[in-house]
């Protein structure tokens, strides 16, 4: 059995009286693609925010590579190898494509100010290596040649890809993608899925998706976790989850739960 990279143990997160996550347990094995699905407001994005240290859970533990990260600031968690993209694109709009990815690589370039000013050998080495790696990332996402375009001037699809490249800039072990296919056509989604599979193969990445597009989820995921009202109601292989009565109920409502599987 492969290593568990990311784990939630009994995570509970409240906002005032609302329980956004209720005693959620979750594990993510290295080298896999997993998806979190659930109706709107089920707590999917909240779980991402807990994983990245943006929210601290009221109780429970979050572990990255077996190490507890509760109480760490988001930048420390990024340094441990967890990075994410956003449902509503949050690029640094007034910075170039290259600069966006370089900010993503912030924790991976160990440079002192003087190295930059004096152009020391350390600078040439580190910056050169970082730029090489980023060049390959931009090739990978198909943004080569647009390095100096401002992020806000990119078309929508490119912005989505740049968000992924920026997250990859931090050289993560786990990549969290929040609805990466939102606003994409079926063809674009398919291309993105192929791209994600390639990432796993070439970069040895582990991917966790939040996704509404069921076709994508069913096709790509090794495991699917279903949240509803902050609780995990099902987990397993895509085909199993698809037939789960509670899942069908959560998606379609009690009355219609009698017939058939969840279809896209």
């Amino acid at each position, binding site marked *: 059995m492969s290593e568990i990279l990311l784990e939630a143990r009994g995570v509970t997160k409240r906002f005032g009286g609302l329980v956004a996550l209720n005693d959620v347990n979750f594990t993510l094995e290295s080298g896999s693609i997993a998806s979190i699905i659930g109706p709107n407001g089920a707590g999917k994005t909240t779980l991402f925010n807990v994983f*990245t240290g*943006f929210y601290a859970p009221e109780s429970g533990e979050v572990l990255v590579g077996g190490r507890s990260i509760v109480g760490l*600031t*988001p*930048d420390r968690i*990024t*340094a441990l190898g967890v*990075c*994410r993209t*956003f449902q*509503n694109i*949050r690029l*640094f*709009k*007034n*910075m170039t494509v290259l*600069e966006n990815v*370089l*900010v*993503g690589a*912030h*924790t*991976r*370039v160990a*440079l002192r*100010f003087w190295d*930059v*000013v004096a152009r020391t050998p350390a600078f040439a080495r580190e910056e050169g290596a970082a730029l090489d790696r980023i060049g390959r990332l931009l090739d990978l996402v198909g943004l080569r040649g647009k390095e100096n375009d401002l992020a806000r001037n990119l078309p929508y699809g490119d912005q989505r890809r740049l968000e992924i490249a*920026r*997250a990859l*800039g*931090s050289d993560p072990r786990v990549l969290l993608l929040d609805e990466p296919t939102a606003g994409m056509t079926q063809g674009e989604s398919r291309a993105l899925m192929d791209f994600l599979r390639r990432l796993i193969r070439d970069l040895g990445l582990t991917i966790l998706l939040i996704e509404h597009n069921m076709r994508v989820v069913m096709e790509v995921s090794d495991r699917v976790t279903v949240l509803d009202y902050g609780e995990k109601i099902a987990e397993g292989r895509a085909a199993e989850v698809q037939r789960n009565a509670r899942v069908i109920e959560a998606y379609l409502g009690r009355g219609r739960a009698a017939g058939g599987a969840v279809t896209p």
Partner: protein
Amino acid sequence: MDWQLVLAILPQVVIDGLVLGFMYALIALGYTMVYGVLELINFAHSEIFMVGGFVGVEILLSLQSHGWLGRINPFVALILIVLAGMVVAGLLAVAVERIAYRPLRSAPRLIPLISAIGVSFFLQDAVRLTESLWRNAFYLTYPSFAVLNRRIELGQSIDFSVKSIVVIAASLAMLVALQFLVKRTRLGRAIRAVAEDQPTASLMGVNVNRIIALTFLIGGAMGGAAGVLFGVQYNTINPFTGFIPGIKAFTAAVLGGIGNIPGAMVGGLVLGLLEAFAASYLSLFTGGAFGAEYKDIFAFSILILILIFRPRGLLGEVVRERA
């Protein structure tokens, strides 16, 4: 009107304006950078500037009292006091952020503003108290250097002091260095990322607290350098010196587009030049009805006009969006 006279004094006016303008630009950077990362108007910045000025005069006075001042090359002394002013002012700005702003980071925006005003009063009185105890006076005069006060004459009616050129050159060098830092370095990228979207920068691995502290360090250092240059240029300094240049530099930052670094530089220069033009030409152009003492009214009227037509400032066309 005597156009010949107008033209004859023009180069002089431009140089005076540039001296003033570069000084405003240096101070304005501190306001605009801090606003960029925190959306806070750091009203204590004018006192950071003032403290820089006091560091410079204290070093010169103690060198003088040991009889070393005459033996040092004035330019070496100048570099020394500018650097010392930058270090002390920069560290002071970091301390102010740590003590007076960071604990209030999540408070409503008015609260840190009030805290900033409090820090401003505190620093004024702290300097007044220590200088009163230490020197029995808090209006201090910069020891003058003959070389720096020497005037360069070009033609009959134009002459300017060496120190004006020194102030312009030093400010220009710092502005270029800052532009390089912000545009080309990892730290600069991180500062811009934090300014644009703090939570996202944090999620991408940027240590936001550290970047904010470094922003205060850089802005404070620029303000401290401006304080020393102010003292060298205008000779006297007191604990309340910071107020007027501070307000004007803040205005310059708004004029250029608050949060916009090149904007602060442009705004500073525009305001400095306007003021110098008004000081020299108002009485000429109005037949003596308005004298040089109306320079601020003139400069600020232009400013109000510019802001009516460009509310985001001269270079403030970039709209910052926050999710």
